[in-house]
């Protein structure tokens, strides 16, 4: 077969959103690739310049449908840095518990999409079902299913509901049991291993150079987790290990995310049992001083950074959002070239694409 360019996207089952991957194939082998993003650009950075600081929290939720809590939390971290506001200790623990629940929910959604990409409908259904457990917990906590609007400057919106500790401990036990079953389901499947091992290799140097962050970076053998290495919130008081793997292929990325879910269960357990008593919300200032604030957290997809410039009014002068997926996608050609068309879904699925945050 002759060489040809194929547009995978903007409407394609592989894309999980609205972006376009142009690949040049020779037969079934990829010889060139070129991602194109921007189909979902909503101008959130410009939009935020016209809203007050409080009003941006629900908008920051809309950055990513899979992990909205991480983004509103990131925004609150950035603005707290700008305001110089201390967060209440109880609120920090509630935040950490909620964030890790969000991380598990996000990873389960990734697992669902990944399984569906590889053709296993059963993985999709099982993961989405188990995600529901954590979505229900977050719904009881914040009052909404997907876009929580939960963190506030210096605290959180609500106290934990009654029985929350019991329910979250139960959910963690259930999740660990289910994770073992997933490992049986995926790693016990010869087909899964055939599709994943040695596919989409990303070397350590390339991963660091191309700005790949989060689970994909840790799968390439770099042990760097912002929760551990630049702790923000109360992560330094909790006991956990960032998951790493040295291979840098699709299986490593899968494994890192699975291990992260175990670690998240551990963190949730510690957070809900160690939670101190006290207030969970304070009066937040209306106007921010002149200056800059930087928030930098470990999003489920990588390193999320927000940079807020305040000018003394109640609206931010400039809000810059660093999306981990936006940078990770630019490294896609490095992973794709040399593999087959069928590997595109495994490689791009393994990166956990979320176009809402990438295009902003």
């Amino acid at each position, binding site marked *: 077969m002759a060489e040809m360019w194929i547009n995978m996207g903007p409407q394609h089952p592989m894309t999980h959103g609205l972006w376009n991957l142009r690949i040049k194939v020779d037969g079934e082998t990829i010889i060139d690739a070129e991602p194109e993003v921007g189909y979902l650009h909503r101008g959130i950075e410009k939009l935020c310049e016209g809203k007050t600081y409080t009003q941006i929290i629900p908008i920051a939720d809309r950055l990513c449908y899979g992990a909205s809590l991480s983004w509103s939390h990131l925004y609150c971290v950035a603005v707290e840095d700008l305001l110089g506001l201390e967060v209440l200790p109880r609120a920090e623990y509630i935040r950490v518990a909620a964030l890790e629940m969000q991380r598990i929910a996000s990873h389960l959604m990734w697992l669902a999409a990944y399984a569906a990409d590889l*053709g296993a*409908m*059963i993985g999709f*259904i099982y993961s989405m079902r188990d995600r529901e457990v954590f979505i229900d917990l977050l719904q009881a906590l914040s009052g909404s299913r997907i876009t929580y609007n939960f963190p506030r400057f210096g605290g959180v919106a609500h106290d934990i509901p009654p029985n929350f500790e019991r329910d979250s401990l139960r959910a963690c036990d259930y999740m660990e049991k289910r994770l073992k079953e997933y490992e049986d389901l995926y790693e016990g499947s010869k*087909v899964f291993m055939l*599709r994943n091992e040695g596919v989409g290799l990303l070397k350590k140097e390339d991963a660091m150079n191309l700005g790949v962050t989060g689970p994909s970076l840790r799968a390439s053998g770099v042990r760097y987790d912002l929760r551990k290495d630049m702790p923000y919130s109360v992560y330094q008081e909790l006991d956990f290990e960032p998951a790493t793997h040295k291979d840098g292929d699709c299986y490593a990325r899968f494994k890192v995310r699975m291990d992260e879910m175990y670690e998240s269960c551990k963190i949730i357990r510690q957070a809900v049992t160690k939670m101190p008593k006290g207030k969970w919300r304070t009066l937040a200032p209306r106007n921010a001083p002149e200056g800059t604030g930087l928030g930098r957290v470990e999003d489920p997809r990588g390193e999320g950074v927000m940079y807020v410039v305040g000018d003394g009014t109640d609206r931010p002068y400039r809000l810059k959002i660093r999306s981990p997926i936006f940078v990770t996608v630019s490294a896609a050609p490095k992973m794709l070239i040399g593999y087959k068309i*069928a590997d595109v879904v495994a490689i791009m699925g393994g990166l956990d694409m979320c176009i809402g945050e990438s295009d902003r």
Partner: protein
Amino acid sequence: MNLFEFCYGIIHWLVDLVNHLWYWLGDHLPWVFGDFFNWAGDLAVSHGNIALFAILAEAVIMFVIALVNVLNFIWIDRKWMGRMFDFYGPYYVGYRIGGWLQNLADGIKLFVKEIITPAKVDKLGFLIAPVILVSSSVLALSTIPFSPRFGVFTSDLDTGVPAGLLIAFAFFAIAPFSILIAGWSSNNKYTLIGGMRSAAQMMSYEIPLLLCVASVFLLSGSFGFLGVVNAQHDIWFVIPLFLGFIVFITCLAAEVEIQPFDLPEAEAELVEGWTTEYGGFRFGLFMMTSYLRGYVGGALATALFLGGWQGPSIIPDEFWFLIKAYLVFLIIEWMRWSNMRIRVDQILNIGWKRLMPLAMLNLLIAAAFKTMGWF
């Protein structure tokens, strides 16, 4: 009494009813066309004519049964999937019969959709590909009898289509041709890749499939359904040829293009593969055909390895045959819903490097059994 005799009797009775008119006309209008009416009546009642119409009636009956079976298959597939995935499956349409009418509703929906022919397709190929696919599958169906009495026969002593299994496999193997036509004529890169993959895959899986069938032929000494099934009177071939059965089921899954081997329509990377450009009822035909082929495959596996219609006579033979075919289908579906899709180079590796030697080994085992004189 077999199905032919039954149809023959009914046609004969109908012809007799009508012939009263011809002979009455011949009696009362002798001066105009008397001879002609008498001749027409004699022709209608002749053996050849009635036999022809009886065979047509048989074909219609078998076709209707097959279509009802396809509806059943889709329903079973969905319910089975729901059982495995812990949800209900079809539920509301036909609530009292377990959602069975959902497939009919889907069919009606597909039927009333607009039939779109994209502007830049090759019109002839685009139109003819579904026709070839459906007709070849239905023809393969016509050769399969449900019991020694229920099938498409040509006389009351007949044993079905001569060398029926060979013909069934011949029709079964036409499909890649039509898929290649569909993929090429749709003028789309995805369909083209899908068609090419389909051709490569079917070509490489046809050989182990037929080698397994050859081992059965070797043991039974017959090419026809009745001969093969009667040879399994004492022991089903699945026991001596267990290896062959496994290889056969695997190849069947690849032939029918279901989950671990559904590369030609791989949803995630090729959108819908070679069916991407087909919409509405044409897509419905493709979907129905895939289940039809699943049914044919299940029936073939039943006849070849599972003793056909043989079983304790608590229930009629025909139902034994259907139950076994459904079981084979369920096994295939189990593979389908719990497996992932395999890559194109790996599928060819498995076909040529694993299944082919296993099929050869199976043939060797069959030959050994035959040489020992056990069969």
